[in-house]
């Protein structure tokens, strides 16, 4: 069946198989992908604002920069390897888009910020280098919220920002919006994103693709322009669970450049995929079927049930898995869930403010062209011009809550609550505990993709788009979002799995099983609007 699909829509494992056997050339794959980008992405990827073309509003705009020539050269090298009888690797010829928060040697590595618009990285991030070593071909860098600070990709300094391939009036989610949109629209077979509070999973849910946030330390952060260093996880965005397994296989493992990357053996993620879910204990938690957030006008804390379609999709997934032999455990308590966003607000901003210190206009990045009085004036003007609104807000907040007179009240307290959140998960995954779960099943997001402009500007409300995702980052555990259907408006619904430390394999196995169980469902055959126009 996959062979009948156009090359850009085929899964990575099928493309790699064809390239390795010589059935299809890597050049043909790359050319087909570039043609798809040409057809759906809109104006040529650029960091300069273009003319305000009404055509823009119908296009995806996933890419900030393309490395088409290097990609074709790489494809030819892979084809030559195949011709010589060598194995170019398990991802041979697979087109890869890279969230532009990763440094890739010789490419503009911008973090979607004017600050780094002209920064060309002299080295390649470890996860990208490993995917390339496995045969994947980097096509270009895709858009994101500036420095990954956001959940809609709208805050990118490089407009027009990415749009949702299923509905161009909606956001793709974020911050890995370009990653999810490019994979959904066949502009890449595989993308690498980063997840700090759901930044892989939420856009994956909004764009109807698979997004995996690995365990913290499973994948090296070397070369990832840091946001919240204790939360950031690089991970794959793909169209299938099998592709996510292949990509994680290539990316995972210890790294001499990152001491927080764990020196643990990496299991074979593809091998167990077909083992089914019989006997797995999968939990459902009431704490993930409602959200608690401050009312945007009154500030009052409110509890709201999730939209029925999202609840129904999650329950439907649970039922399908139950029919396949999984044991569904109801009413699993995760009492500290609602603290996730307030805690994240503090911790991520303290780390972000510090991580942004290096962008001072001294060594690289934007330096003001205005006349300057002194050093402080140069700092102020360079940072004032180079940073957009989101970095500035995060610096203000981060400075405030880590200041000497407030740190114990905010930052230290947030760290303690983070420990409590971690304990919630430890107790339900404990093999000797009361719940002994192999995974938790939850909705990925409280809503499907929202309209462009509907939430942007309200930083607090925007943050609550990550409410159901963020606690995996606090706890460091792996989590995956997979497509679970569509809402009445034709927008994808994401279903999320949480797992125990280092147990990505079980999440991939459940996701793969769910794909198999729903392969013939009508919703599986829907195509993004961007591909039909």
């Amino acid at each position: 069946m996959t062979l009948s699909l156009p090359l850009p829509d085929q899964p990575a494992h099928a493309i790699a198989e064809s390239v390795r056997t010589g059935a299809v050339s890597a050049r043909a794959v790359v050319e087909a992908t570039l043609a798809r980008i040409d057809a759906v992405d809109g104006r040529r990827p650029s960091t300069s604002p273009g003319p305000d073309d009404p055509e823009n509003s119908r296009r995806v705009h996933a890419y900030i920069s393309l490395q088409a020539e290097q990609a074709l050269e790489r494809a030819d090298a892979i084809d030559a390897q195949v011709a010589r009888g060598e194995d170019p690797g398990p991802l041979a010829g697979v087109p890869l888009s890279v969230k532009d928060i990763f440094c890739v040697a010789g490419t503009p590595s911008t973090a979607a910020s004017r600050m780094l618009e002209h920064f060309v990285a002299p080295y390649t991030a470890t996860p990208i280098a490993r995917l390339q070593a496995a045969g994947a071909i980097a096509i270009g860098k895709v858009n994101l919220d500036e420095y990954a600070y956001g959940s809609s990709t709208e805050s990118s300094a490089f407009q027009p920002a990415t749009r949702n391939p299923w509905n161009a009036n909606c956001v793709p989610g974020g911050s890995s919006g370009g990653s999810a949109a490019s994979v959904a629209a066949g502009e890449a077979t595989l993308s690498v994103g980063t997840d700090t509070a759901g930044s892989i999973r939420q856009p994956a849910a909004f764009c109807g693709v698979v997004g995996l946030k690995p365990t913290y330390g499973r994948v090296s952060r070397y070369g990832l322009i840091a946001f919240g260093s204790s939360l950031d996880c690089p991970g794959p965005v793909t169209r299938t669970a099998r592709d996510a397994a292949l990509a994680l296989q290539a990316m995972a493992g210890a790294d001499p450049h990152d001491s927080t990357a764990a020196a643990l053996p990496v299991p074979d993620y593809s091998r167990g995929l077909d083992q089914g879910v019989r006997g797995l204990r999968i939990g459902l938690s009431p704490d993930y079927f409602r959200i608690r957030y401050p009312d945007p006008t009154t500030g009052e804390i409110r509890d709201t049930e999730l939209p029925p379609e999202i609840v129904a999709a999650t329950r439907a997934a649970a039922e399908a898995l139950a029919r396949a032999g999984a044991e569904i455990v109801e009413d699993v308590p995760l009492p500290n869930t609602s603290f996730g966003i307030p805690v994240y607000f503090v911790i991520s901003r303290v780390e972000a403010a510090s991580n942004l210190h290096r962008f001072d206009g001294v060594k690289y990045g934007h330096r003001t062209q205005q006349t300057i009085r002194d050093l402080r004036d140069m700092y102020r003007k360079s940072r004032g011009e180079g940073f957009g609104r989101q970095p500035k807000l995060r610096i203000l907040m981060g400075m405030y809550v880590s200041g000497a007179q407030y740190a114990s009240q905010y930052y230290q307290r947030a760290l303690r609550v983070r420990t409590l959140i971690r304990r919630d998960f430890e107790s339900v995954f404990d093999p000797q505990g009361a719940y002994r779960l192999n995974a938790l099943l939850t909705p990925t997001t409280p809503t499907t993709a929202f309209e462009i402009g509907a939430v942007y500007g309200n930083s607090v409300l925007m943050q609550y788009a990550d409410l159901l995702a963020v606690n995996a980052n606090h706890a460091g555990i792996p989590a995956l979002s997979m497509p679970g259907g569509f809402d009445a408006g034709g927008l994808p619904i994401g279903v999320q799995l949480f797992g125990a430390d280092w147990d990505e394999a079980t999440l991939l196995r459940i996701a793969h099983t769910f794909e198999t169980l729903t392969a013939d469902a009508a919703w599986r055959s829907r195509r993004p609007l961007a591909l039909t126009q």
Partner: protein
Amino acid sequence: MLSFEAVIGLEIHIQLNTHTKIFCGCRADSWGAPPNSNICPVCCGLPGVLPVLNRIAVEKAVLLGAALDAQVRDESFFDRKNYFYPDLPKGYQITQFDQAIVQGGHFDVPMPDGRIVPISITKAHLEEDAGKTRNDVAAGVRQIDMNRCGVPLIELVTGPDLRSAEEAAQFLVRMRQLLRWLDISEANLERGHLRCDANVSIREAGATVLNPKTEIKNVNSIDAVRNAIEAEIARQIGEVEAGRRVSAWTLDWDDETQTLRKMRSKETEADYRYFRDPDLLSARLTPEWKRAVLATLPELPLARRSRFIVDYGLSAYDASILTEERALSDYFEAAVKALGGNPKTVANWMMNDILRVLNESNATASDLAFKPAHLAETIRLVEAGTINRATGTALITKVIATGRTPTELIAAEGLAQISGDDALQALAQAVLDENPQQIEAYRKKPSLLKWFVGQAMRKSQGKANAQALERIFLCVLPPADV
């Protein structure tokens, strides 16, 4: 008139002599390297880079902690100290804020007057160095050299236990000795391996209060420490005697003009917003690792000095000199061992000959081609009368030059002492035959005996046994008149 005493504490930045920097693979030592030639993405703080801790830096801190009788934490943490400066590429310095690897401890400092003054150590922590900024005011530019970024440092903080500028200077002398002894740092002050800030206050002699202190920055030589603190004590006494209060200033010592300059008032201190660096795990010392490091802790200078006095019967002076440097003391002990005893003779040779050769060649004892075994062999040859003392001394440079052993050189160059009676008598006779008038003179002036011996020594090219010659001349010369 009141009498005052000074209360001084030091903060010393010690540059470690690791091979690589503390968080990347660049060489730690950039001495003489052109600006920005010893850098990489990590130490320049490029976007996306991460630090990876150099284990050797941790080991050196453990050794220092053990030598200072301190608590070495099994788990210590790294924090970010956030501030902006052009030569701080990340905009924060990675340091250890509240859980430093070395906590407490003390350091016994021998003073020239024989007292041993115990100085408490508050803490010592690991951190990375910043780069160097050069302000070219005329050209209106500021130039940054990042070679020094990421060089491993230990910052050591003492208690306020020093009571004079001289004590502070002696502390630094002994600390430099210890650091070299432990092979932690080259401890070369001229090269900035040791950088010192001094906290100074005064109080009425015998009081226990701590008055507001000033911090003197950039005192980077032993003399500067002495002079800057002396100047500051005098200034503070002047203030108090004039009825003014000493304010908590930060002062800069200008070594050129030997003057103190006020940099800023302490009240405006920055908030560094310290927090744990999420990019680094804690430094966790496993028991095996700690044991292995501590097993390399050598006997310390003061202990070795007392042992030399007690076990070898050396004078306090000789023992001090011979324990100045670890390599020198090791050399001495190896020579004693090779000789099978006679430590005083070995010490005598060390003080007279080995130290001279070391000074002349600017070498350390461990690098000397004239090995302890060579010294033992030479001493044995002199004691046996095979060569005389002067030949022994001459042998040192010959061994260094040729790489041959003393015994080989004696055989090859005919350096053995002439001590057979026949040979010596022939020598003496030849001198007498050539100098009849001197024989007459000798009758009036018996001290000419030395002259005759000297002539004979010259004839033998220094190889004759001088005492035997003297005996022979006494026999063959006519009796003196007096």
